[in-house]
């Protein structure tokens, strides 16, 4: 009998969604709780921001109270003590929101609170580790260190019993994703016009689908969910896409963490290698920038690699990546529909009914997409809406969802044994999948970038680049613009050399 592609369903860490109804039982359901927590945080932040932001250039009133440990070089203590007040508020908000969720689920709030203190302290240490100067500039994100800290404890002394009631990985991830929805502003999909649409919209789904198909049919990777998480992580936008897709296809926790580890390792390599390749190939700033933006997984690494070329490459790379970032809404929704319709169905049974699909559908995805649509509408159609959304996201909710994700990764580490990863390394198939998928991504994105930015729309792109250069050299219009750098064709003599580390 053929094996079910997602055989792990029985022991899934993002478990199948039971039937939800608008009842007390429905309200207790994890996906609904995630929508209530994420949506509640957003509504509260928008209300608080409304009065003080509209018509002014004031930052969001929450900005001074919600933060993460600041940067440091060799002594973390000053960075930690300076950030303590701003760390306290995310802790209070989390303990209130998730404590209320525990109460609604009929669980002991006190036991959760005690455990959460330990989990939160580990998350704060993970943030502190990621803000060390060298670590930060090598794009080694907090997720990696949160996982490592959790793994160190669970694989040595074992996860203490008092921490276990706070290991609500799925609830943290899903609540964070609902908040992330406000950052997925759909009108930004058009940020680079037609060439951007071709590079980001066409290549991304093609690579995602081809890599998944390759993993299933050629490599025959036993876990379809691991295959999907690696494919999305590699083709869309790294860690954030991996988190969203893992929750949509109900992947195992160790599959998510494995995919993220893989992605971060390759991101460091590509962040250094791609600017060198762009120069060696003599590509223009826009073609090189689009290539970098479409292929490097992590958003921050994309901008760093683009900046290694010049300001035009940096902007093009960052904008292509932004479009890919926004595609995670569509990806999460598409993967959730595909999973409940095709992957989870009985291979010998009939096609599932709509009611069956609805029953299995991860409802938090609706919250994620719904928040994205509402935020886009506010941003586009409400007077001052764009400023309100931007200030709310930058001043408050980005930090909050980062804490939720960091806490979730600590929980994953605390719930995983090193032995759980051994099966993925055996035979090297997931690594091979990543390498093959990324190779396809590199070839397709380069071809499309060259065609769009170098041939078909070369003139209008050149005009935009000139305008961008003018804007950057006039810093009065943009406060945070980078150092003025005139756009110029990339040649080894014209640009700063990037040395491999």
């Amino acid at each position, binding site marked *: 009998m053929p094996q079910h592609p997602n055989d792990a369903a029985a022991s899934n860490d993002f478990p199948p969604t039971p039937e939800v109804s608008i009842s007390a039982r429905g309200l207790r359901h994890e996906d609904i709780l995630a929508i209530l927590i994420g949506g509640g945080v957003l509504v509260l932040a928008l209300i608080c921001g409304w009065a003080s932001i509209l018509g002014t250039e004031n930052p969001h009133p929450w900005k001074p109270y919600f933060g993460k440990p600041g940067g440091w070089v060799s002594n973390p203590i000053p960075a930690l003590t300076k950030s303590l007040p701003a760390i306290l508020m995310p802790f209070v908000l989390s303990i209130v929101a998730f404590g209320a969720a525990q109460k609604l689920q009929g669980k002991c709030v006190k036991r959760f609170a005690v455990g959460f203190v330990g989990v939160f302290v580990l998350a704060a240490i993970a943030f502190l580790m990621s803000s060390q100067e*060298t670590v930060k500039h090598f794009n080694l994100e*907090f997720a990696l260190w949160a996982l490592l800290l959790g793994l*160190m404890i669970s694989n040595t002394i074992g996860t203490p019993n008092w921490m276990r009631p706070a290991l609500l990985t799925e609830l943290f991830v899903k609540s964070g994703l609902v908040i992330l929805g406000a950052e997925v502003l759909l009108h930004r999909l058009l940020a680079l016009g037609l060439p951007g649409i071709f590079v980001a919209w066409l290549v991304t789904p093609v690579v995602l689908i081809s890599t998944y198909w390759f993993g299933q049919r050629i490599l025959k990777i036993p876990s379809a969910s691991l295959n999907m998480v690696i494919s999305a992580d590699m083709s869309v936008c790294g860690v954030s896409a991996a988190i969203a897709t893992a929750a949509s296809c109900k992947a195992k926790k160790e599959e998510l963490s494995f995919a993220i580890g893989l992605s971060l390792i390759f991101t460091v390599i590509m962040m250094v290698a791609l600017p060198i390749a762009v120069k060696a190939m003599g590509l223009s700033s826009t073609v090189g920038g689009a290539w970098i933006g479409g292929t490097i997984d992590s958003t921050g690494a994309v*901008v760093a690699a683009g900046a290694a070329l010049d300001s035009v490459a940096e902007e093009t790379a960052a904008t292509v990546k932004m479009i890919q970032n926004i595609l995670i809404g569509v990806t999460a929704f598409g993967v959730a529909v595909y999973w409940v319709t095709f992957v989870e169905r009985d291979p010998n049974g009939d096609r599932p009914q709509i009611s069956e699909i609805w029953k299995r559908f991860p409802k938090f995805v609706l919250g994620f997409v719904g928040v994205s649509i509402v935020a886009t509408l506010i941003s586009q159609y409400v007077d001052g809406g764009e400023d309100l959304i931007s200030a709310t996201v930058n001043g408050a909710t980005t930090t909050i969802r980062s804490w939720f994700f960091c806490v979730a990764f600590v929980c994953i580490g605390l719930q995983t044994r090193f032995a759980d990863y051994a099966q993925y390394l055996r035979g090297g198939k997931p690594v091979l999948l990543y390498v093959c998928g990324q190779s396809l991504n590199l070839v397709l994105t380069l071809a499309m970038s060259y065609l769009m930015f170098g041939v078909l729309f070369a003139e*209008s792109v050149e005009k935009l680049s000139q305008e961008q250069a003018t804007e950057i050299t006039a810093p009065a*219009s943009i406060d*945070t613009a*980078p150092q003025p750098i005139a756009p110029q064709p990339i040649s080894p003599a014209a640009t*700063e050399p990037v*040395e491999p580390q």
Partner: protein
Amino acid sequence: MSPIDKAERKRAYATLGFAVTGLVIAWTIVFPWIGQQTSIRRMIERNESHGIDPTAMFYTDLENMSVQDGMLRRINDH
């Protein structure tokens, strides 16, 4: 708790202590030293001067995204 359990527990705590010490050394001595090497320093300074945080997970984590918003506005103006 049997003597074997006790010994195992001791070993587990010792392993954790060893790992934590390794992390402390790496973060307070090794990484700062790596950051001082010329090529790495150049990369760090370039990123810092452009206001780039390479660990940004999403575009909204980038303080400098107003530049990209500028591109969106120009596209809309055209």
